[in-house]
């Protein structure tokens, strides 16, 4: 029972970070039909940016986190304008490869500036262990769960109630109709990338806090795929629930079975979901049968 509780907290904590990465992915996919292989590298950038502002510049963490989010947004905008916009309407393979190229560049920049050695920054999530009943769980993950949920909730409100949020949903629903209603598609795409970069940066900050500042943070980029496929590629709710499920499965598989099974379970789930229900739990059923 104790182990179950520990694994659950750890799994949910990791799952929420997956969700933060996945939400950025979903926002971009919803708005512009681009699948972003550079999502993990945006996370990586967030981790290192906050390390830069907190440790190398020495800002207090509120200012550091805010600045990180600003810079991340700027990067998102720059990427959309320079790389993605010329490719609007190109085939899928071009979209995949351009984000892969982007991921390579982003990673190289991080390596070039900060080098491969792991770093740490002063934690702002509480440290140490917390007793939950008789189970010992790490405090940072326990705090990460409500924090991420609050952020994701905020994002949901943004989509429901703000002008640009509604514009984004309109574009996702029907580009032609949205265009004729006077919505600027390039602006919405740019907003989507900025938003994705910011959520990724927040995920990166939390991940940096939990696992440390290392280049390995970028590996989460591929973990996003099982999450978004399970949840449905165009569903934010799906990203959250998918993230939770994949995080939990990973930790249960690793904790109860072992053999490195936690590495592979998400991909097995991915294959099964693709075969049985390709649009995921909450995605729209517009899959074209061949």
């Amino acid at each position, binding site marked *: 029972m104790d182990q179950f509780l520990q694994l659950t907290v750890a799994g949910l904590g990791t799952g929420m970070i997956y969700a933060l990465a996945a939400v950025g992915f979903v926002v971009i996919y919803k708005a512009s039909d681009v699948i972003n292989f550079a999502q993990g590298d945006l996370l990586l950038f967030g981790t290192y940016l906050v390390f830069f502002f907190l440790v190398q510049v020495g800002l207090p963490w509120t200012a550091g986190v805010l600045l990180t989010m600003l810079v991340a947004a700027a990067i998102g905008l720059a990427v959309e304008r320079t790389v993605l916009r010329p490719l609007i309407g190109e085939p899928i393979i071009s979209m995949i490869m351009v984000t*892969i190229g982007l991921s390579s560049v982003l990673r190289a920049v991080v390596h070039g500036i900060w080098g491969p050695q792991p770093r740490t920054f002063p934690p702002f999530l509480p440290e140490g262990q917390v007793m939950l009943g008789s189970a010992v769980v790490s405090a940072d993950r326990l705090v990460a769960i409500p924090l991420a949920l609050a952020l994701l909730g905020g994002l949901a409100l943004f989509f429901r109630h703000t002008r640009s949020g509604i514009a984004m949903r309109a574009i996702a629903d029907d580009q032609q109709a949205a265009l004729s209603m006077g919505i600027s598609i390039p602006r919405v795409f740019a907003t989507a990338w900025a938003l994705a970069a910011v959520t990724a940066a927040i995920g990166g900050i939390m991940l940096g806090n939990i696992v440390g500042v290392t280049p390995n943070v970028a590996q989460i980029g591929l973990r996003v795929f099982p999450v978004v496929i399970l949840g449905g590629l165009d569903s934010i709710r799906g990203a959250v629930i998918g993230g939770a499920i994949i995080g939990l499965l990973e930790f249960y598989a690793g904790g109860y079975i072992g053999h490195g099974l936690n590495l592979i379970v998400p*991909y097995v789930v*991915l294959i099964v979901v*693709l075969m049985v229900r390709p649009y995921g739990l909450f995605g729209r059923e517009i899959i074209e049968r*061949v």
Partner: protein
Amino acid sequence: MRLGLFMGALVVFPFLASPYWLNLANQIAIATIGALGLNILVGYTGQVSLGQGAFMAVGAYTSALLTLRLGLPWGVSIVAACFATAAVGVFFGLPSLRLKGLYLAISTLAAQEIVEWIVTHWTALTGGVEAVVVPAPRLFGQRLNTDFGFYWLGIVLAGATALFTANLFRSRIGRSFVAVRDQDIAASVIGVNVFGTKLLAFATSSFFVGLAGALTAYYRNIISWERFTFETSILYLAMIIVGGLGTIRGSLFGAALITLLPAMIGRVGQELQGSAPAIAALLPSVQQAVFGIVIILFLVFEPEGLSKLWRNVKDYFYVWPFAYRRGEGR
């Protein structure tokens, strides 16, 4: 005539080149085979695959283990490896029954991760994360895994692969691949069995990818899973993007460029090692950044890749000194 010159250059090359360049030439030969294989699937049939690394791993491990454990001669084990990879390719091509485009790409990504996991965790068979030492292949008493010896094997097989691919797309089967890429519904209306064609494309493609993997094993003597990761898949996709999707010349160009680029940057770095060690230390980052930038630049400015550039240059000289273009819309 030009082909003759090219062949002549290929024959003379190993006698003149240093081992460094021979090594690069061999890498390009292997990469060309792999890129041709991938191009059959991605460029000609339009099925995006992110599992190239996994398929190469299947080829490499099958051939290595057949020689090592069962003592089969290397020629036999290479052929067996090709067929084994084709079978695995068909298996992971099965999702294409229901999926296409993006979803299929993601399912091949899962294939990549699953095969990688099997290789690293089925220790009894593959040696896990340990490297496998492959016995040297011999022909007429000569060791073939030297730079010089392997060169001949490499270019003969690369040439044969190119020839086969070129002829494949002159045949009914090859044309049906292209039909499926261009418009799958129209293809099925004119009597192409879409699903069967896709599976056949997966099989043909994987066959050559497996060949590239098996050759890697024999050339390197040592194989380990790190050579066949997702990065490898990306590398090969970059080759066919940069070279030109759905062209044979492009596969060669792309393989050469993507192989030579990091090697050349590495050389510059060695020169700088003495004078500017700070810059030399940045080298791995520079290599990675250049790799990414090359992909992005090609996609944005010349999506048809090097083979299109080649044609432009040729057309330019063909009509020189007049400005009009030959063969518009070709």
